[in-house]
């Protein structure tokens, strides 16, 4: 499948998950996307999957304590200044499950985009939004680049006899990693400018011809979106 129809399908699944007002549809979408993401043959998939799971799990665990809704109290907690009563109700749990499954579906759609799509072909397929697509593609590379830089820095520190341990020790690398990625971004911007980026009259490599699978993916994206708007 070409990357543009695949991206459209992923976007439609993410939108449908956001439009749903019950937890079952986004949970089903998340499950489908999880199976898709597990097909990625890179060890990095576990970083993305752990991130998606951690975020949606945190939303499910924390949000019942942060909202006050419903009358079926399952657990009565203390009253905390600013936050109010920490009661957990059945309605709050249902809402937390829906928010968590929405977030899981969205983050898994992003994971599938980051790990499985050919971003270069996506940029080439983008007509009017080429700049935005390139910006998104470059931003998508930030995570793997940061991960590689972090591994390199830790290795260089070990090579100097310095061992960083624990979350606090590793947290000291956050600032240099971000500074490094800013510097890299500037160097890249300079190289892009020197190669004519932003000049009017740009052309692009001819796109590969659309296949029947591409057409089916585009049709499925439209169907998913319509179903999301009308029935979910």
């Amino acid at each position, binding site marked *: 499948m070409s990357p543009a129809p695949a991206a459209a399908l992923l976007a439609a699944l993410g939108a449908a998950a956001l439009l749903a007002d019950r937890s079952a549809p986004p949970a089903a979408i998340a499950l489908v996307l999880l199976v898709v993401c597990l097909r990625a043959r890179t060890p990095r998939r576990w970083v993305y999957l752990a991130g998606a799971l951690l975020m949606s799990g945190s939303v499910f665990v924390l949000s019942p304590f942060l909202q006050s809704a419903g009358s079926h109290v399952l657990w009565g907690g203390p009253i905390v200044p600013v936050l109010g009563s920490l009661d957990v109700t059945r309605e709050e749990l249902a809402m937390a499950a829906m928010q968590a499954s929405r977030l899981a579906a969205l983050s898994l759609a992003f994971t599938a985009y980051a790990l499985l799509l050919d971003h270069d072909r996506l*940029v080439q397929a983008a007509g009017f939004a080429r700049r935005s697509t390139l910006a998104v593609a470059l931003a998508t590379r930030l995570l793997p680049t940061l991960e590689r830089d972090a591994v390199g820095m830790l290795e260089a520190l070990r090579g100097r006899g310095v061992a960083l341990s624990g979350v606090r020790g590793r947290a000291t690398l956050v600032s240099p990693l971000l500074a490094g990625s800013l510097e890299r971004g500037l160097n*890249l911007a300079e190289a892009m*400018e020197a190669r004519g980026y932003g000049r009017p009259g740009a052309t*692009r490599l001819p796109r590969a011809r659309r296949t029947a699978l591409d057409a089916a993916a585009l049709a499925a994206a439209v169907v998913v979106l319509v179903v999301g708007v009308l029935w979910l």
Partner: protein
Amino acid sequence: MALARLDDLTFSYPDSAARTLGDVTLRIEPGERVVVLGCSGSGKSTLLRTLAGLVPHFHGGRFAGRVEIDGRDTRRERPADLAGTVACVFQDPEDQIVMTRVEAEVAFGLENVGTPPDAIAGLVRRSLASVGAEHLVERRTYELSGGELQRVCLAAALALAPRLLLLDEPTSQLDPGAATAFFELLGELPCAVVCAEQRPARALEWAERVLFLDGGRLELDAPVDEALDWLRVHRPAFLPRVPAAPNEPASGAAVCRLDSVGYEGRVGETSLAVGRGEIVALVGPNGSGKTTLAKLAAGLLEPTSGRVELHGRAAYLSQDPGRYLVRERVEDEVALGSGGDLSRARAALASVGLDGHEHRHPRDLSSGERERLGLACVLVTEPDLLILDEPTRGVDPERKDRLAELLRTERDGRGTLVLTHDLIFAGEVADRLVSLDEVREPALA
């Protein structure tokens, strides 16, 4: 008409009182082959950026004088508008890769300058073939080695068929064979080429004209023969040299012994010992597994076969100086390896010529200074085994001589393993020159 004209060019970067370039006047004619020499921080990279129009457009700063490329004033034309007439390959190939596939990467510039779509694929293949990298066309850019990336960057520049090609230390990551092939390729190009180099021997054979920058001033602008005479008198370290024979063998007990060591197919069955007081230079082509072997010796990787014996502590200097930029001040960065002892950190900085830079932010250092900072970071740990992976990358010949002298002066009491493509440096510093092919078991070599 000259292809490039610089008249009384003076430039300072923003927030810098010092002039990076001062009163530079020169002409570059179509098809000329020019090499730019000079110490680290002398303004070579800035001169190339000026010719590309990136100075002052991209960097800002104070700019005086006039620069014209193909009759166009660079203050009025954006660098993107000069693309195609000018093409550049910068020092670090990793920082200029935009796309994730080689084909798309080489096509990127062609698309930007409006090449007809049907012609792009053919031009991509032809330019990759011209640098011997046609086989990489479908590869992912993040899977390539430094040497392969450098070829892809050159192919991307050549695809634009520029009239002026600017190269900033293009052979810094290439092995001697690849570097020779690279300059042979440059010799066949019809365009003018301006190449800044820190390994001058091949560049001086290839070039027609030599520029020498010192403190931002153009000290020399002469044909090669005249330039060689001038260098002989004023800057002999920049003269081409014949690799020296290794020094006398040392006889200390082994600090590190690798016995039929292998690692995941990247290093196969290799045996090597480094004695105390001995400096061993390990050479081998790009991608032959030198870095992996060094990491095995340093204990940073566990071998998948064979045995590594290390007597004492090892310190490993990575090829990438960006990995030694963790703290906010240069002296604090070095003191990380000395348990916070600032006096030892300052002594290590002085030994690599960075005294006076103690309070600067590591990211404010030039690339050559960052290389030396990395060296200070490992020297301060006073290791029993010192492993240096390409320690002369981006380092000028005079500084290389001082580095060789420093390593030889301080070699007693530790074993030193230097991985390098720089055979001149290897000959000067090493007691023993070892080719990776020699220490691999024959069946796997």
